[in-house]
């Protein structure tokens, strides 16, 4: 069973390089070009790690075995490694630094792996499973304790192989860090392509790594403010169909059904699902001023929340009873919170003269928002309990923050070489990555899905 390990060459050059690499701090730029596989994958991901690489956990992710003729239909290990790398918490070894290639069912020779500096090893295998597709399995080992930590087996189709790889990354992340992974989730975003007067807008969905994108809505009219329902299946958004007015729709991504839930005179904007999924908070101006309302989705009953002559918009739910929103009632835009049934809003942000577009972390503890303190529009956070304020990004036009469902990362819109792209930053600001679609369009307004239910 250790046949693979017989090939272990104690390649001291490789090991030395490996050790040196772990000492190189600061800027480590890694470009992962995932080749086209069975499905059209339209994105190129560039991962930039600006800090934190020196205390990331070294992990060996061995190419998975493939027990049939030809090449495996997907490089599962590469997807797992890219996911873990992107989190900033892990530093996967380069493939040339792997001292052996054990596959699922083998037991690693811990002493050899210890020399590579890897604290953990992931090995796995993939095999055809008749008409059912494939079976993918993996095991995670702790090198220092010389123990098996976790093993999983998945039956997958051609279309769900990537999902299995993301679930393996989630399992490894959770087993080692004790925090749920968010690799097997989705992101929604809006893209616009084409010239002025002939644009195509798309509401797109992609895997959390930005690959595997597909449009759930294609339109000649602007689409904005996508918001996930807690079921992970419905998405609310604003669309200007007919160019005459805005309306808010709820679309089921699986069924392709869409319902126009409100289209009053004036602005119909900024929808946000309540955590229980029964209500939408939104911003409407039919009364003459832009105020916050709560719409009961089933009964269509509309309840006012704010009543001011200022701009009140961008409501989000801190919990089922509390909204956080943007208002310029004190001059420039600032964040406020208010009971969802109405009442006196209380101001949350005081730093700088532009704080807007809040996003609340899944545990409700932290608010991310767009902050301009003079250096441009950047993503900042405030801790609701302590009031601690922190600027996380260094762009000049960063916007639309959205928390990952495990609360560890914030996805946002940014600009690179004149085009709208997406970025993600860890909640401590240590890890920054950027993602750009290579379909020629501008990408904006990302929204990270909840965990699938």
């Amino acid at each position: 069973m250790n046949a693979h390990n017989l090939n272990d060459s104690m390649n001291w050059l490789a090991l030395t390089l490996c050790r040196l690499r772990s000492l190189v701090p600061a800027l480590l730029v890694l470009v992962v070009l995932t080749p086209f596989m069975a499905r059209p994958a339209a994105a190129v991901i560039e991962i930039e790690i600006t800090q934190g690489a020196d205390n990331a956990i070294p992990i060996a992710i061995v190419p998975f075995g493939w027990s049939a003729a030809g090449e495996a239909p997907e490089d599962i290990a590469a997807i797992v490694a890219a996911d873990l790398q992107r989190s900033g918490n892990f530093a996967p070894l380069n493939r040339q630094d792997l001292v052996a290639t054990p596959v699922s069912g083998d037991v690693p020779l811990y002493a050899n792996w210890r020399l590579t500096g890897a604290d953990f090893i992931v090995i796995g295998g993939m095999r055809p499973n008749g008409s059912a597709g494939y079976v993918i399995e993996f095991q995670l080992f702790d090198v220092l304790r010389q123990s098996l930590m976790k093993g999983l087996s998945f039956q997958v189709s051609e279309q769900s192989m990537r999902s299995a790889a993301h679930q393996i990354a989630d399992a490894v992340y959770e087993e080692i860090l004790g925090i749920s992974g968010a690799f097997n989730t989705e992101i929604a975003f809006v893209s616009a392509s084409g010239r002025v007067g002939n644009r195509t807008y798309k509401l797109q969905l992609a895997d959390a790594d930005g690959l595997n994108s597909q449009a759930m809505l294609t339109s000649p009219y602007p689409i904005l403010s996508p918001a996930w329902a807690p079921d992970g299946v419905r998405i609310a958004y604003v669309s200007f169909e007919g160019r005459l007015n805005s309306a808010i729709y709820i679309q089921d991504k699986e069924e392709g059904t869409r319902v126009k839930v409100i289209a009053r005179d004036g602005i119909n904007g900024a929808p946000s699902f309540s955590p229980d999924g029964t209500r939408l908070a939104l911003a409407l101006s039919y009364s003459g001023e832009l105020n916050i309302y709560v719409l009961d989705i089933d009964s269509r009953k509309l309840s006012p929340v704010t009543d001011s002559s200022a701009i009140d918009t961008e409501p989000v739910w801190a919990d089922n009873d509390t909204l956080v929103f943007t208002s310029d009632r004190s001059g420039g835009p600032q964040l406020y919170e208010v009971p969802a049934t109405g009442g006196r809003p209380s101001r949350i942000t005081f730093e700088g003269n532009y704080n807007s577009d809040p996003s609340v972390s899944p545990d409700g503890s932290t608010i991310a928002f767009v902050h301009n303190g003079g250096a441009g529009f950047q993503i900042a956070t405030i801790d609701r309990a302590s009031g601690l304020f922190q600027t996380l990004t260094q762009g000049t036009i960063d916007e639309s923050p959205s928390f990952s469902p495990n609360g560890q990362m914030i996805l946002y819109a940014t600009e690179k070489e004149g085009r709208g792209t997406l970025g993600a930053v860890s909640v401590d600001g240590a890890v920054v990555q950027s993602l750009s679609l290579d379909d020629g369009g501008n990408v904006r307004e990302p929204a990270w899905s909840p965990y699938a239910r």
Partner: protein
Amino acid sequence: MQTMNRHKLLDVIGKLSAPGFAVVLLAACGSSGDTRDTALDPGVIPTPSVTPVTIDGALDGQALDPGSISGQAPVERVIYFDYDEAELRSEYLAIVAEHGRYLAQTPAGRVRLEGHTDERGTREYNIALGEARAKTVARMLQLQGVSSAQVRTVSYGEELPVDEAHNISAWAKNRRVNIIYEDAIQN
């Protein structure tokens, strides 16, 4: 349930294991089929599905008919604004007044005022700013006797820039209200 039990067993093994248990583990995850089952937690991953939706239509209105209301209305139809401002700049007072006079004399005339912003600031906040700009122009028209039934406003915020560059001159062109005579539009 069996799956759960296996999973838990695996967790227990994982937590108990120390180097001394390595031999046990070697057996547990050896290459024979039976023992591997103990280490693996099987699951079926459903194939993801998305049903795409496509909306048809064209963004732009028809060409102007010179004999129409739109064809005879004042030709300056774009009003520009300062950054983060919804107040009318003094140089545009005369242009708006000209539209006001024309519409007041032409009760059949209908205008749609489209408010736009530059890309700076958040999108929904810019929708609000664009609406404030359109309403500024609407108020000016109404002060000149134009009926409220003749005027409507819509804001696109930063969604429909005329210049997509990211610089001061592009931003200046994008902060605007378009005055659109609606007799050219069927819908």
